[in-house]
């Protein structure tokens, strides 16, 4: 197997006395779409923040592109941030700037790019998202939830990152929008070949996108593997999550049979 793009080594995270992760290990490999799954409060988003270097671990280390994430400082940190993009759960668009400037901001931070090139890139990203030039002048407060996600994704992809982080990409979208968004990510992933790490609750999204699933529970990665492998593991959380009523609806008949079989 290729060497991992992200290595999480014996990570321990705690807020005060509340321990979120205890000796957590996780490797993420190039080009895969890894879904981080877990109950509320299992530290999925916190793990993402650790990987991004937004929080400091109590113990252990997170390596991104082979180096501890907190070793990147100054211009190296800036260079690192050009290699990844992050879609925050609520979009985190800069509310003071219109859509165009929001997407252009990462490009403008790379100094000396000509303004017409920036314009071309921004409009191209917008067209990927199925948005027009007219939308570029809107303010984030004028956008619907689905559009905010798409603009935020356009911003995350502004610099053609190798690594894309998605925090609940389909939360707050109606089923149709959510399917469209998943399809959009899948097409972009196929075309651009980036690595995706996503946090999600949504079984449809996991089933449609992920090449590998890592389940966070009991302060560590409980199981990792393909969706099929993970679904075979017996554990109370996994049973409730992957074999509950919602799962039956999401995965269809085959799973239903399996579950009935298990019960009899």
């Amino acid at each position: 197997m290729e060497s991992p793009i992200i290595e999480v080594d014996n990570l321990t995270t705690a807020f005060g006395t509340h321990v979120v992760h205890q000796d957590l290990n996780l490797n993420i490999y190039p080009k895969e779409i890894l879904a981080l799954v877990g109950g509320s409060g299992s530290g999925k988003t916190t793990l993402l923040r650790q990987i991004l270097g937004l929080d400091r671990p109590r113990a252990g280390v997170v390596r991104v592109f082979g180096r501890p994430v907190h070793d990147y400082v100054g211009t190296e940190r800036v260079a690192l941030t050009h290699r990844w993009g992050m879609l925050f759960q609520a979009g985190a668009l800069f509310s003071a700037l219109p859509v165009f400037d929001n997407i252009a901001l990462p490009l403008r931070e790379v100094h000396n790019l000509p303004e017409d090139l920036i314009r071309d890139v921004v409009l191209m990203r917008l067209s990927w998202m199925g948005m027009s030039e007219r939308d570029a002048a809107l303010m984030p407060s004028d956008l619907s939830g689905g559009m905010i996600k798409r603009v935020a994704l356009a911003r995350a992809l502004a610099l053609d990152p190798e690594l894309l982080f998605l925090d609940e990409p389909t939360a707050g979208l109606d089923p149709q929008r959510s399917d469209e968004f998943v399809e959009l990510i899948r097409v972009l992933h196929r075309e651009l070949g980036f690595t995706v790490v996503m946090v999600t609750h949504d079984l449809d999204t996991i089933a449609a996108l992920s090449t590998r699933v890592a389940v966070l529970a009991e302060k560590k990665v409980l199981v990792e593997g393909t969706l099929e492998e993970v679904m075979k593991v017996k554990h109370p959380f996994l049973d409730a999550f992957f074999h509950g009523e919602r799962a039956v609806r999401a995965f269809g008949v085959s799973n239903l049979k399996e579950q009935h079989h298990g019960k009899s």
Partner: protein
Amino acid sequence: MGFLIGVVLSYLSAQQLALFGAGQFIVKLLGIATVRELGPVLAAILVAGRSGSSITAQIGVMRVTQELDAMQVMGISHGQRLILPRVIALAIAMPLLVLWTDALALLGGMIAAKLELGLSMQWFFSQLPDAVGITNYKITLIKGVTFGIWIALIACHFGLRIEPNTESLGRGTTASVVTAITGVILIDALYAILFNAMGI
């Protein structure tokens, strides 16, 4: 506000000065008190309450909406893009506001002096340059710049410390204004000692 303070100050001191028959000293008294001390401090207190609180709240909301995290992930420095512009803006705007407050307070004082002591406004105005002196105007501007920088720094500091919840936002904004105003008064006292030692 500056105008009213000018009126009150002039009115009170006019009564006292009239007792000694030294009514014409009102120009010097008012001029120096306003330009050197009251103008800068008054303007700073108002700006700390108005702009300081809004800067803190603005940055605090950016924490709540994860805009600050987004900046960090995108490698955009908070210092350069959030703090520096605000510090420069207040360092420029504050001395101008101080001059404006000075002018209004003196105008208020002039009117009160006319009503209370019957000093003509033209006379008051013509005496003003001699009474106050260019040094005091320099002091007013220096204080304005310092207070502006101080208020912006304090507001940004508390803004960045806000945690992503509503309660923290309220607490941070209050702390920012209280610290900024207390600091302004302390800095003013330090300046008083400093200028005293320099003999101006």
